[in-house]
């Protein structure tokens, strides 16, 4: 009986070992802020993590959802408040502001000049790279609804899903790294 039990235990250990080895590490970020600097930090961490062989999921919520808007797309049938929100919030990753030293766009222009000189990728480029690397973007349905954004006006991104907090929680639960940016 004991020998049988030990055999089973050994087999189980082997199986668990295999599973552990084959399991990819996961990272889930909450991307909440809608400013250029913070979004860049999120996207650099996200793309970098794919190099570390991690599965990356970004949960875009509140102000960050503005950065996912495609300036070339527009949606009809919005009510007055939604239209107003749409006008006042930045339309896409190119339009987001700096959280500090924005100075009416002067600070941002200076930073972008420096970034170009130093070979730092722009935010739209980082989105493109993240898409190519298989980074998943989940967009908070409630934020979209509040701000009057529609799925049809978001950028073309390979893995993008509109979802709720439940998706984030279940992703976060099985992730080794969770950050709120």
């Amino acid at each position, binding site marked *: 009986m004991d020998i049988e039990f030990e055999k089973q235990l050994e087999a189980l250990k082997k199986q668990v070992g295999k599973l552990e080895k084959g399991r990819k590490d996961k990272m889930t970020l909450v991307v909440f802020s809608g400013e250029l600097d913070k979004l860049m930090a999120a996207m*650099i961490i996200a*793309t*970098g993590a*794919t*190099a*570390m*062989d991690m599965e990356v999921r970004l949960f875009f919520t509140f102000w960050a959802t503005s950065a996912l808007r495609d300036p070339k797309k527009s949606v009809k049938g919005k009510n007055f408040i939604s239209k107003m929100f749409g006008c006042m919030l930045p339309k896409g990753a190119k339009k987001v502001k700096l959280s500090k030293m924005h100075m009416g766009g002067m600070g941002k222009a200076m930073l972008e000049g420096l*970034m170009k000189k*130093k*070979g*730092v*990728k722009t935010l739209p480029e980082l989105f493109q*790279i993240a898409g190519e*690397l298989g980074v998943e973007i989940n967009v908070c349905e409630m934020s979209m609804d509040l701000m009057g954004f529609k799925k049809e006006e978001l950028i073309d991104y390979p893995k993008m899903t509109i979802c709720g907090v439940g998706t984030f929680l279940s992703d976060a639960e099985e992730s080794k790294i969770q950050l709120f940016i």
Partner: protein
Amino acid sequence: MNAEELKGLKANQTVDARGTACPGPLLAAKKAIGDIESGEIMEILSSDEGTKHDIPKWCQKMEHEFLGIVEEDSYSRLFLKKA
């Protein structure tokens, strides 16, 4: 390995990531490592200071063997052996 030994190494793959900033060199390394076989040598050229810390950590995580760094005038050459 010391600098002399590293200079004598023949890399199977050279990745030129000079002029790109974080996370450029890391992503370039990740992309290029897929093109070589286990046991082969890869060389990464980078002008980004942070890469000198990032690539050894990346090797540790991915189980590649980090061989060392050769400093050139305006960039570094980082060597590793694929796991």
